[in-house]
């Protein structure tokens, strides 16, 4: 508590240097939040930017989403760290929007609030049996192997599982398939959570299905991730060559998309490659196209436990926008499995008191300006409230997408300032006010310096195991490391 108090005094003395700066609060410290902070600091000289996060750790999905065997993708945290160390920027971890502080309170304290808290929930299929044991969302599985403190006790049963079905063929689907199939000695030197590594070591999974509604010409993954999984040691790849037949509409689609073309080519090469070395302990990966889940099958031995997926075959038809969509053919087949991971998309959680577009999973906005309920053609902007990242455009894209997304939102803020739609002349108490409010509510803030304590403890633990870091994967451990 003493440390916290002195930090607060420091902040207070600091903020008196400049008179009435523009005070900006960003909710969420993932790529969207940090890129927004970086752009605001650059565009608005003198602006004070606070990034709040519900976790004690910053960087959002760079920490809990990016696969442990993709360390290069995480290098961007160096850039985000430089942003956090900017004298006009602060990270305030352990601050939950909703329970610690409400949105109206934040809007009262700051001139500008940018919501960038991403998508912490999942789309659902809405088919029978979806609640059976053994069925999880890919997000849960990812958060578990990445040491997210909310999923420390997730414990998926990999020892009684021979076959896993992954619904979806995007990069998240490929990530989880790769983690399930990759030799664990290769994962052991990554920053994968130790509890996940132990479970994977005793995994009995030998067969994984990646199931997609459409065909190889429409697969939603990228070439890098596909190349990677196709190259796993001792892994047999199964792709039905008949699935690779292209319709004229497929040809057209491929002609227009470089990435789809390259993905298709990789798949067809993999399909025609003859497997020369069939080892006894091999693992299998099946790319299953043109199938959609109809319902989940229940195990006879284990009540309410999944034992398979009832799939409907599909075919593609062009919709009015020229896009090819999958429709059922009323032909069915079953795939037996003991575990299902649904990788059909993330979903944002609505912010209390704000409109939410459930169809697209976003807060309605115009170039990042939050708009209240639209009536007819007119949309009313919510003064000083903005949105960035997945909450703004839906849960798609890569880390770099947020760069452009943030640029757009921040230029909207700058335009509104210029037009006088925001009132930076009004005195707002910003960080001091927020810290006071949190103090009154006994919410203990994690500063960036305290996160750095977590960081160095994780690196120290990692070095003992020949890993870049060993994540502290429970709330207790995290709190002990920073406040200890």
């Amino acid at each position, binding site marked *: 508590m003493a440390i916290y108090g002195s930090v607060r005094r420091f902040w207070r003395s600091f903020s008196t240097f400049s008179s009435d700066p523009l005070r900006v609060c960003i909710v969420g410290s993932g790529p969207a939040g940090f890129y927004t902070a970086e752009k605001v600091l650059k565009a608005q000289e003198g602006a004070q930017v606070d990034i709040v996060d519900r976790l004690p750790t910053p960087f959002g999905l760079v920490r809990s989403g990016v696969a442990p065997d993709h360390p290069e993708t995480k*290098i961007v945290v160096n850039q985000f760290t430089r942003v956090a160390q900017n004298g006009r920027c602060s990270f305030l971890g352990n601050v939950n929007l909703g329970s610690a502080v409400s949105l109206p309170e934040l809007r009262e304290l700051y001139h500008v609030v940018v919501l960038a808290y991403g998508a912490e929930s999942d789309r659902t299929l809405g088919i029978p049996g979806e609640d059976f044991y053994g069925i999880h969302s890919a997000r849960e599985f990812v958060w578990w192997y990445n040491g997210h403190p909310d999923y420390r006790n997730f414990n998926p049963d990999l020892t009684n599982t021979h076959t896993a079905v992954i619904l979806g063929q995007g990069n998240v689907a490929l990530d989880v398939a790769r983690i399930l199939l990759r030799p664990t000695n290769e994962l052991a030197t990554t920053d994968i959570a130790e509890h996940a590594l132990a479970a994977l070591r005793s995994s009995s999974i030998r067969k994984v299905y990646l199931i997609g509604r459409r065909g190889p010409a429409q697969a939603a993954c990228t070439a890098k991730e596909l190349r990677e999984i196709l190259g796993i040691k001792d892994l047999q790849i199964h792709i039905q060559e008949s699935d690779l037949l292209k319709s004229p509409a497929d040809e057209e689609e491929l002609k227009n998309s470089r990435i789809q073309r390259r993905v298709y080519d990789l798949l067809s090469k993999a399909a025609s490659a003859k497997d020369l070395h069939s080892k006894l302990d091999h693992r299998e990966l099946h790319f299953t196209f043109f199938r959609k889940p109809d319902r989940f099958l229940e195990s006879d031995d284990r009540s309410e436990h999944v034992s398979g997926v009832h799939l409907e075959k599909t075919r593609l038809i062009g919709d009015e926008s020229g896009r090819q969509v999958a429709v059922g053919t009323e032909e069915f087949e079953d795939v037996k499995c003991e575990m299902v991971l649904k990788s059909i998309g993330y979903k944002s959680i609505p912010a209390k008191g704000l409109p939410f577009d459930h169809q697209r999973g976003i807060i309605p906005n115009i170039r990042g300006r939050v708009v209240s309920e639209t009536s007819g053609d007119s949309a009313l902007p919510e003064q000083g409230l903005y949105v960035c990242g997945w909450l703004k455009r839906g849960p798609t894209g890569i880390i770099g997408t947020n760069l452009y997304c943030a640029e757009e939102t921040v230029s909207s803020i700058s335009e509104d300032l210029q037009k006088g739609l925001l009132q930076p002349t009004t005195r707002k108490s910003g960080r001091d006010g927020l810290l006071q409010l949190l103090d009154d509510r006994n919410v203990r803030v994690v500063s960036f310096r305290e996160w750095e304590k977590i960081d160095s403890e994780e690196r120290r633990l990692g070095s003992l195991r020949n890993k870049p870091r060993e994540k502290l994967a429970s709330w207790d451990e995290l709190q002990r490391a920073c406040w200890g």
Partner: protein
Amino acid sequence: MENNLFHASIMQKNCLYSTTSSNDASGEEAEQKQKISVTFVDKDGEEKHIKVPIGMSMLEAAHENDIELEGACEGSLACSTCHVIVMNMEYYNKLEDPSDEENDMLDLAFGLTETSRLGCQVIAKPELEGIRLAIPAATRNFAVDGCYRQEEARI
């Protein structure tokens, strides 16, 4: 390796600054030979002319010269934020073909063109003297054209 080259050149440059007063013209020539002229055209169309030591990547060169070129993965081929467009096909053809890994990242670049490359993979060499590189104006593409849609299916 590239870094060493780079530091060596900086050292040399500092050295030269302190000795040019003694009319060491031959030294200056040698120095010129080891650098090429590169023009960056930024998002707003503004040009910046810089000298880049042989062996240095355009990403490093941009950062050394305060040119706004993102480099999220710091040149480790894990992102496409240092996307540049070679403005002249003739120069583009002087470059080695992109590797599969670079192409994988270019797949995801905003506003990809026929002569797009990653700045971290374009390494200064004498044949590239005079090369012009445009930094794509991605913001405009972002909301307007097909790039946004193409991105939508990917995660």
